[in-house]
């Protein structure tokens, strides 16, 4: 479904990604792990079109998408959730979803139901300004926003960063419920979560793919993976 070949990405003169190649099948959940600065966020940003690669190709469902804008990516079903947990703080939760529904063409009621179904508690917060939500609630709102419309590929950057264990549990269960329905590329440092959800792991080190793991047994070997963090 998503195939990246020989991707090079740079910030000005500084190269962040070297010759990245990876592949994700439909319905799979792939995880990107690696140290801070390894290039994981850069990779996601390039896939969604916020950054343009120097060379290489990104193919999605057979089509080359590396030159498209983020708006065009959205229409193709790609959804990006950034690392900073930025919601539209000055708007209410309901209005956040309203904006998410706007471009997708999905009726607001249906969008709201969809988000409510993954996280019913959000109903109490519909009229609250999104800026007043806690970190965990924001993360869930962001995932909810991403699910409006017809998402096909989720790109999520560090969803559990800075969250309490209970909240992490909720997010894991939400993502768990999405398996098989949407494909996903998720950046994570939380190896337990990776263990539970991953079909495939890519380990990034200094802008290169250090290791690709598809075997269940190797994914469970958290000790072995830890050294890459």
């Amino acid at each position, binding site marked *: 479904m998503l195939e990246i070949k020989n991707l090079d990405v740079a910030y000005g003169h500084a190269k962040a990604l070297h010759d990245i190649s990876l592949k994700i099948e439909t319905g799979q959940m792939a995880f990107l792990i690696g140290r801070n600065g390894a290039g994981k966020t850069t990779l996601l940003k390039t896939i969604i079109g916020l950054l343009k690669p120097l060379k290489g190709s990104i193919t999605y469902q057979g089509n080359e998408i590396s030159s498209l804008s983020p708006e065009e990516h959205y229409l193709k079903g790609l959804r990006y959730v950034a690392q900073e947990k930025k919601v539209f703080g*000055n708007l209410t939760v309901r209005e956040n979803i309203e904006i*998410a529904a706007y471009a997708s063409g999905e009726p607001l009621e249906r969008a709201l139901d969809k988000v409510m179904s993954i996280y019913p508690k959000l109903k109490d917060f519909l009229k609250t300004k999104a800026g007043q939500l806690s970190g965990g609630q924001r993360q869930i709102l962001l995932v909810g926003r991403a699910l409006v419309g017809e998402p096909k590929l989720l790109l999520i950057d560090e969803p559990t960063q800075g969250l309490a264990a209970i909240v992490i549990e909720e997010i894991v269960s939400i993502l768990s419920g999405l398996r098989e329905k949407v494909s996903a590329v998720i950046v994570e440092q939380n190896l337990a979560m990776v263990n539970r959800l991953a079909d495939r792991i890519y380990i990034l080190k200094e802008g290169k793919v250090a290791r690709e793991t598809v075997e269940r047994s190797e994914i469970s070997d958290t000790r072995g993976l830890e050294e890459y963090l």
Partner: protein
Amino acid sequence: MLYTVLYGFTIGAILYFISIGLSLTFGTIRVINFAHTLTYTMGVYALITLVALFKGYFALAATLSIILVIPISYVIERFIIRRLYGESLDYTFIATFAVSLIGVDTIKWIWGVNPYPLSDPIGTYLAIWGLTFPLYRVLIVLIAILLFLALNAFFKKTIVGKIVVAALEDKDGVRCLGINVDKYFSIVFVLGSALAALGGVLYAPISSIHPYMGLSILLLSFAVVIVGGMGNLKGTFLSAFALGMVMAITARYWSQGAETMVFIVMAIVLIFRPIDI
């Protein structure tokens, strides 16, 4: 003393009309538009011509002037502003300044350099509490308040308004939700320019009209936007009236110092709250 207050509110209202566009353009496109008051000036000159044409139907001439100015601001947006997205600040300054140079010179070419007089279109007075106030000035303040309420409603209730509010905070976030933000920013730009023209048209009868009128009020608008906060609607409203008041009160005691006082206030604000662009 009350006259001073009314005068302050009137100036404040006019500053508000002009600063809204400047503030929004900065908050959204991140461009400091030196040519912003070009539509202000052009609206005024269009007004002069149309008022002569329509022999005194001020409201009609005023409305038409504003409408005429809109295509000009669209052209500026399309060919200059759009190319400045993401550019370093000095180039946006210089480019927009160049546009204002061209615009002012065009005005000088067509209408000449001499000031035009324009009289108060209403001419009647409002009598309250034993004092007479020029009705026209009161009207300007009322229009400003109405505009504030209308803009508030626009940004809170309409989906376009909400998109702009969201984009002011997180432009990439809105883009990643499939919305072409730049298109809406262009609309905001043209709206802001139209409002500046409104300000010009309303202020024309009580100010001096000359080709450089845009520049002096532009500098004051910069001060308003800086004091009120870029992209901050309520802040712009408050600071416009506050600075208008500063001008009026200063003018009462020290007639030429009015504008300078505004700059001193701006400098003080910048010292204690430097903006990071």
